[in-house]
């Protein structure tokens, strides 16, 4: 099993590359830990907020003797942020109480990269029609730009850009399926 705590000393010393390696292994687990909050919070915003906070407090995080203590700490930060935002913004107290009592997954393990998947995705991307391929590439190349800005760069209206992006991911999912890679139904 991968132990992301090997990155902790470097992260604590301010090494952003080490934090990048930690995030590569941790993000999926952090995001999945917030799945039950999805109707009450913008999960994407909370994940980003959480990762920024963890970077700030990492020098004070002490390993607890078990592997992946920083990952478990990060999941706790994410869930605390989610509970706090749910309380602040939601009038549905039953939902808030239910979410508060759900325990964080204490046995979280990092995600492991799959080199085969990378190869197949690259082949599938080559088969995309021009406009969907452009939309996909543009979002991947410039996530710091708003969709409206990306759309303007591509000479598309925002809705057309989103439709092309949606088409790209559906075609990608179909292609991956043909290669025996079962991507989740959410992409299709």
């Amino acid at each position: 099993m991968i132990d992301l705590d090997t990155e902790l000393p470097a992260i604590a010393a301010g090494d952003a590359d080490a934090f990048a390696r930690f995030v590569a292994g941790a993000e999926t687990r952090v995001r999945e830990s917030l799945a039950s909050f999805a109707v009450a919070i913008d999960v994407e915003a909370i994940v980003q907020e959480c990762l920024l906070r963890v970077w700030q407090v990492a020098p004070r995080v002490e390993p607890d003797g078990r592997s992946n203590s920083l990952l478990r700490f990060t999941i706790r930060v994410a869930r605390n942020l989610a509970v706090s935002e749910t309380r602040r913004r939601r009038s549905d107290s039953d939902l808030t109480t239910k979410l508060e009592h759900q325990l964080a997954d204490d046995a979280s393990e990092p995600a492991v990269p799959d080199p085969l998947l990378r190869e197949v995705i690259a082949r599938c991307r080559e088969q995309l029609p021009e406009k969907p391929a452009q939309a996909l590439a543009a979002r991947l190349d410039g996530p710091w730009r708003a969709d409206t800005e990306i759309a303007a760069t591509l000479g598309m209206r925002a809705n057309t850009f989103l439709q092309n992006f949606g088409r790209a991911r559906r075609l990608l999912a179909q292609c991956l399926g043909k290669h025996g890679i079962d991507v989740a139904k959410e992409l299709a």
Partner: protein
Amino acid sequence: MTDQEKDALIEATAGAHREVAPDGTIRWAPAWWDLDDDGRAKAAALATQLRKLEAAMDPDGLSTTARLVLARIRAG
């Protein structure tokens, strides 16, 4: 709201781009506010799968979320 309009809101919410407020906090996606519970759940599930694919495509295993966060960290 038509299905097409809802799909566009889901697609927009599932993207990683978020504005940063002057106090440094991450603003929620404008499209998220216009979605019903079903749309919000679908957007979050879609984002999870997209981030996995993005990470798989990236040589360093980083999703667009990760690259955004790291760009903000490196910018100080």
